[in-house]
């Protein structure tokens, strides 16, 4: 299942660009966004298979983005990246409709597994 199109959203540019590069090496297509609003615009403009979304961001948080997505009655799978509340944040995100969550720092293999699972589950 290659050539999936992933939208990566995280305010830590260094992190998100590196992650994108690594995913590209694993034959994913990626687009990156450093904040929630930009991500929503990208989402509106293009078609993605999976969104990888950081929870803790200045301005729109990951949860806000998730809510907006649900408003657009989108059922695109979202994988949350949590940093600080760990489990609780993950659980809260899942209740908002996220597919799964990962705690930072992440393991790339785990992420690709979850992406594949999300796409499979969605199809």
């Amino acid at each position, binding site marked *: 299942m290659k050539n999936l199109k992933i939208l990566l959203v995280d305010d830590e540019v*260094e992190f998100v660009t*590196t992650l994108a590069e*690594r995913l590209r090496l694993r034959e994913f297509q990626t687009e990156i966004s450093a904040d929630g609003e930009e991500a929503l615009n990208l989402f509106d403009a293009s078609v993605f298979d999976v969104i990888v979304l950081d929870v803790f961001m200045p301005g729109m948080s990951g949860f806000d983005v998730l809510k907006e997505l649900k408003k657009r009655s989108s059922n695109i799978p979202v994988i949350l990246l949590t*940093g600080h509340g760990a*489990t*609780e944040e993950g659980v809260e995100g899942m209740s908002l409709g996220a597919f799964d969550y990962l705690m930072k*720092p992440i393991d*790339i293999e785990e992420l690709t597994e979850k992406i594949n699972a999300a796409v499979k589950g969605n199809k």
Partner: protein
Amino acid sequence: MNNKKWGERLSKRFLQSTGDKDSPLHYQTLRRNITILMLLVTIIPLIFMAVINYLEYKSNLKSEIINPISILTNKTVHSIELYMEERLSTIRSIASFYSFEDLSDEKTLSRIYRVLKKEFTGFVDLGIIDENGMQISYSGPYELLNKDYLQQIWFQEVSIKGSYISDVFLGYRQFPHIAIAVQQFEPDGHAWILRATIDTDKLDNIIAAMGLDPESDAFLVSGEGILQTHSKFCGNVLEHCKLNIPMGSYRSQLIEEKNILGKDVLIAIKHFAKQDFALVVVKPKSVILKSWYALQGEMLLIFIISISIIIVVVLKVSNMLVKKIREADERRELAFRELEHSQKLSSIGRLAAGVAHEINNPMAIINEKAGLIKDLYQNTSDSEKTIKLIKIADSIIGAVGRCRNITHRLLGFAKRFDIELEMLSLNDVIIEVMGFLDKEALFRKIDIQLDIDEDLPRIFSDKGQIQQVFLNILSNSMSAVKDGGKIIIRSWDEDVSRVGASIKDNGCGMSKETLAHIFEPFFTTKKEYGTGLGLPITYGIVKKLGGDLIVKSNENEGTDFTIYFLKKSKTE
């Protein structure tokens, strides 16, 4: 207002000791003060009551005991007076009815004498005495005819007063008697006297009729203090009374108490109206106050019993009270210490969480960068440098992984647990947790034995938290034992409210110093691998669920963790 202040000061003074609160001396002082205070407030009123009662009873009883004696004395005096008056009026009547000549006739006199003897008791004889004091006619058992009474006092007195009742005297016949004489005048002017004597037996009888007890005494005494009747303690008839009876101007009833005749006595004196006589009743106090003494004894007994009961009760109560206070103090102290401990934990936790969160983001970057290096150079060349670079990247990723473990644990430590209660089987939780560690145990050949109570009741608690508890303790045990070591897990029904579980290993154990610190955050013996948060978290969870965690350990012998869970956990 003043009273309140005073009370406060008193209670302060007594109930707060200056000693250190934790010292046993503090409670000893407290107990002593409570005891003294309680004894004072109970015994003082009791003593007051007892004294007042005593005095009240004493005065009441005395008047009740003394009154009958004086009434009896009065009655007896009255009887005697009546008796004498009756005899006197009889003699007077005879003197009026008959003329001197009639009575001078021996036959008439002896007939009258016989009638008198028959109709009236007490008459001994009857005689007529002319104005020269010569007994010219006599009827009676003695030979007293022609006796001359001119020089006798009674003769003088009857000549002046017209009638006379003598004191008891012996007279010519040498036998105690009383003379009654009445003077009568003939139409020609010459006087004569009708005289009768009465024996004193009748007076003794009247006195005996008072029905006094054997220890008491009653007698008649004349104005000169001469006994007129027989006395048990004060002498015989006509002897001088051993008691000093106040006479003379004292014409009224008198009651006195004196210490005489070797004992305390009560003396009732009633003077006669017409004669210089007094009836004296002597009663020993011990007899009169017998009932009083009995009552006194009973009162004393009751008093002593009540005091003893009060003392026993006060001692018991103050002991109990101080024990309760002490227990409450200890509980408060413990609660305070626990609160302090949990506050310390939570503030450390918050700080740690902040640090962990800030470190997480750069860690993520390092992780991705190192990952990228690995991704870029993997499978590109077999050159030594490439291989080394990949190795370096791997070790960076490994180090980040360790950091992640630490930060995640720190975050876990800091987070506020929301307890979700459900019915669960402790045994199932234990078995689930063992599942996580099966592989390691298999690999290290650690023998994990299960000795669980199959009938263990289900408990109402938080499954996730209990899992965490067992996971933490089991991990500790696993790291304590050597390869091939042994861990025994047990569960049992402790009591109505608790179930128990224990995890016992034969590992390295802990020294006393280590044991004292194991629940403190960041205390670790694992040096590189431990965060020092596992057991504090475990302890916190168990406490939050209302349970208890007890650790026993001997160095080089092993460690035994015993955990108690409430069957129904607290929701807070």
